[in-house]
């Protein structure tokens, strides 16, 4: 099934394109990653700058910011997630169609950032939803966001469509709904989703 890399290059030189369905499919997906039009704080300004002419995110096929979560592929958490906002973020994520990805942009979305010790700030969105790419910075430069997008594209290219280690969206029996936290008397209930937090880091051998 797998095409020998050397043969592939040799065939390419002769004008014959050899590819696999998986590569073609992933190439198509990575070339049109549509983000959700959704900003939370100052990082959103950098996100907007990244889409404009100077940095031009359209070069990577990611210019179509969709206002509806149904049409979006990636959710860029661009800024501080307050505890009052967190249920809405999870709800929007639930409404996105698979395959879907999350980019945590900036220190606040990753860990709460400078507002971490505040009573009203969530200490990182990965307490409730799985995050694919973390982009550090306060706020990250548009170049950093573009780098994060390229990382995401690499991740998409590496996803297998078959086999036991195929991603969640290829598994028909996985529901993919994440519990929306409720407003409690002292904090959000639950204070984190046990299915995704704490993050267990898989080291690739």
């Amino acid at each position, binding site marked *: 099934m797998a095409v020998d890399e050397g043969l592939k290059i040799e065939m390419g030189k002769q004008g014959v394109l050899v590819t696999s369905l998986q590569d073609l499919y992933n190439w198509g997906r990575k070339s049109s990653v549509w983000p959700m039009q959704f900003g939370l704080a100052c990082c959103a300004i950098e996100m907007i700058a990244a889409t404009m002419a100077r940095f031009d995110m359209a070069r990577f096929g990611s210019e179509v910011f969709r206002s509806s979560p149904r049409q979006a592929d990636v959710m860029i958490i661009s800024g501080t997630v307050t*505890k009052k906002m967190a249920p809405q973020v999870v709800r929007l994520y639930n409404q996105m169609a698979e395959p879907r990805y999350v980019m945590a942009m900036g220190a606040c979305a990753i860990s709460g950032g400078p507002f971490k*010790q505040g*009573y*009203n700030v969530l*200490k990182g969105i990965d307490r409730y939803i799985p995050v694919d790419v973390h982009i550090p910075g306060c706020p990250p430069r548009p170049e950093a966001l573009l780098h994060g997008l390229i990382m995401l594209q690499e991740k998409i290219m590496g996803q297998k469509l078959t086999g036991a280690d195929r991603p969640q969206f290829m598994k028909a029996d996985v529901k993919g709904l994440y519990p929306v936290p409720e*407003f409690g*008397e*002292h*904090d959000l209930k639950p204070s984190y989703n046990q299915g995704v*937090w704490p993050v267990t880091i898989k080291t690739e051998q």
Partner: protein
Amino acid sequence: MPEGRGFEVKTVEEIKAAIEAAVPGAGVEIVTNPGPSAQHSLRLAHEHAVAVATFLRDDEELALDFLSNVSGVDWPDKEIVEKVKVTRPVTKTVDGVEQTAEETVEETRKRVEPGSLEVVYHLYSMAKKQGPVIVRMKTVNRTDDVAVPSLTPVWRSAEFQEREVFDLYGVKFTGHPDLRRILMWDEFKDYPMRKDYVEPDDFEYEPTAHDEVAARAKAHQAAAAQEGAGA
């Protein structure tokens, strides 16, 4: 205009006198500010607060038509330790004869000064280009009697700011048209800006813990380990 006083035309003493002339028995107290800014303020009594505020707004000389800022202050219960000299009679036996003499002894006494919540209003005049005049009101305590009269009927701009003080300090404004939480969610029970607020214990993962955060993370891990051992 006195040096370093902004655009104040009248001193607090003069304003106090004007208020007392207009609202008899207003019960206005001067709270002096010992700092270099010397921004003294006026503490209003609850029962006359709205009348005094209306006077400050409508008086032709003051014309304080703009409420710029409402802030809350939490004064926690304070334990005061003081040394008092007490004179008491002491019976002594001198040369076999009982004598009563006065003796002065130093005693250490502790008393708890009950805390309170305070609301501070900064007023300016757009018409006269003067201000700020600072008025404040204090609640009786910080547990059950936490009401102060709302000044929203006098200055409409107080509405959201009084709601914010209600939300974060728990001051109840009587006469406020719509007293609900404004920043935190409605189900929230605590008052986060109070000194004795205990924040939720979500210190299970601190990658770069230091100082207070490190201590909290350690305490969380100890508690979690104990819970795990008990279960």
